[in-house]
């Protein structure tokens, strides 16, 4: 996983609540491993019916084409489990999303990929949104080591994050590699559990194939 320590850059405002993952990356980009997810980010609002850039969409306006951070309304990333929503943000260049809350699956997916989801209280998110709307230098600095979001004027807002999640991001930990070290415990669990719930573990393969032949 990509490490995350800090990011400083242009922050774009997405003040609406409930931005779902269908909006972040439309389904038409989910049919191939080769899809250009960066181009697909927010495709439905980003492009007009003719396929050209929609000039009103925030990421099409300078300097927001270079956005590294999003500041969004509550429940960002709700809906579909598609991890491509996180990948699309990253391909575009986004490293961090700040919002009052996130969809549960999106939140989890973000951590697995080194995209930092920062939860701040509603009032502070509103403060950041007004700052970004008024500023001619719409940049923010997000520092995971010190757990702060700061404006160029020196306003610094602390945020909370589970220590284990923070550590995993700072180190770029491979969670699967970590869990594989628990291989012995997993095996012991399965053995003990099979004694109690044999029906969970005792499946013999072959039923699927036999039914297919029987047709």
């Amino acid at each position, binding site marked *: 996983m990509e490490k995350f320590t800090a990011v400083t850059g242009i922050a774009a405002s997405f003040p609406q609540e409930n931005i779902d993952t269908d909006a972040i990356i439309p389904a038409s980009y989910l049919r191939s491993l080769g899809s250009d997810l960066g181009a697909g980010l927010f495709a439905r609002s980003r492009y007009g019916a003719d396929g050209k850039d929609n000039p009103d969409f925030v990421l099409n306006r300078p300097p927001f084409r270079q956005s590294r951070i999003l500041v969004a309304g509550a429940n960002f990333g709700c809906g579909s489990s598609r991890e491509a929503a996180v990948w699309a943000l990253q391909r575009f260049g986004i490293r961090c999303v700040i919002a009052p809350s996130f969809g549960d699956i999106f939140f989890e997916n973000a951590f697995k990929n080194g995209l930092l989801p920062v939860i701040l209280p509603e009032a502070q998110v509103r403060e950041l949104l007004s700052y970004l709307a008024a500023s001619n230098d719409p940049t923010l600095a997000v520092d995971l080591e010190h757990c702060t979001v700061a404006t160029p004027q020196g306003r610094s807002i602390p945020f909370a994050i589970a220590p*284990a999640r923070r550590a995993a991001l700072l180190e770029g930990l491979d969670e699967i590699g970590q869990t594989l070290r628990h291989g012995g415990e997993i095996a012991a669990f399965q053995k003990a559990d099979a004694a109690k719930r044999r029906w969970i573990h005792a499946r013999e393969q072959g039923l699927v194939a036999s039914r297919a032949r029987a047709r």
Partner: protein
Amino acid sequence: MPESFFDKVWNQHVIADLGDDAFLLHVDRHVIQETTCAQAFKNMARDGRKTRNPELTYAVIDHVLSTAPGRTGDTFEGGREFVHLMRANCAAHNIELIDVDHPWQGIVHIVSPELGIALPGATLVCGDSHTATSGGVGAYAWGIGTSEVEHVLATQSIVQRKPKRMRVTFDGKLAPQVYAKDLILYLIGKAGISAGRGHAVEYAGSAIRAMPIEGRQTICNMSIELGARAGFVPPDDATYEYLAGRPFAPKGRDWEAALAYWRGLPSDPEASFDREIAIDCADIAPQITWGTTPEDVTGVDGRVPDPAAAPDASRRAAMARSLDYLGLTPGQPLEGIPVDVVFIGSCTNSRLSDLEAAAKVARGRKVAPGVRALVVPGSASVRQAAEAAGLDRVFTEAGFEWREAGCSMCVAVNDDQVPPGKRCIATSNRNFEGRQGPGSRTHLASPASAAAAAVRGAIADVRKLAS
């Protein structure tokens, strides 16, 4: 200490306490579908990792398929890559695949309970947000992302933080033409789409106990639209009756042992919950959505609400945007709004009982001129059972298309799409902008309400047709 169903199931599955509120949980059943596992297998190949327990892994193809009669995995060009990758990856990892032409093929969440893959008190995960559907048979089932799919394939376990416990109690008797779908939409309308965030939801109450297992699956299916990853109905006799004899359900002595274990799972009477919601079902009318999130819902006899009456500016803006997108006017009665497409299908509402409810309305009637109406059974087994009962003929004689099983028009990853600007009454679970295709306008409703809309050519109150 009294425990809830969820506490008991959680405790049974903890392999290790990882600290900082994180636990390593055992995954009893891992179900994979073609669109969300391809990248996981690719990463595993890169890292030289194997599937730890292929015998606990089940695979189906459902999303990127054509549902045209006689289709194969190649009929929809755009889906071929994932269909072929799925076959190759399953073969390489020794995972049994329920392939496109298999008599058990279907939407992953329809197939999991139907085949007895999902079992009471079992953990079941799938790279798909509607995995909680299997909570209808009492599984602790939840949707995961692709990185987690890879983690589960490699380790048969998952890192989880324990969600809070919520209980939703549905009491009272349902009025005629009111179905499970109406109950869950009503709940989401009342509580909102983020009420369940961070929670695992137990559905309880007399209405749930009286509800057949297929209806419970419909309720659990839309837990994610309430914001919760997991929702379940603890098992009871109806659950055991439903599961007995299903292909992957335990047999013989295993069945007896399982039954004894399952009977101990329901929440203790004194169990506590972090949040409780009570719903009285008696007053619930058939529901229909009027906006672009599932909480934008009202009784079919209601009107399009006025954004001016919204409690705050952000809600006002969101409502105005929804109405603009859907081409609706504040104050307009919902009943009578013309529709172009009717979609009866999806993991929410494509089981036999759903098709029966729709067929009852469609029987002896005709789809209104100019309306395209599709019936897409959730699985090949449902399709076969419906044909045995003659439902296919009821639908085709009325002018509905009778299609093969798959996700179809629920999601625009295949060729069943709602054209731009067209209005669709759908029995699926998401009315997001563009969900059914770019510019598509979606209203969610029950199968009976959808069938009523098809024959009326407009949003219709099914209670008036039924009498």
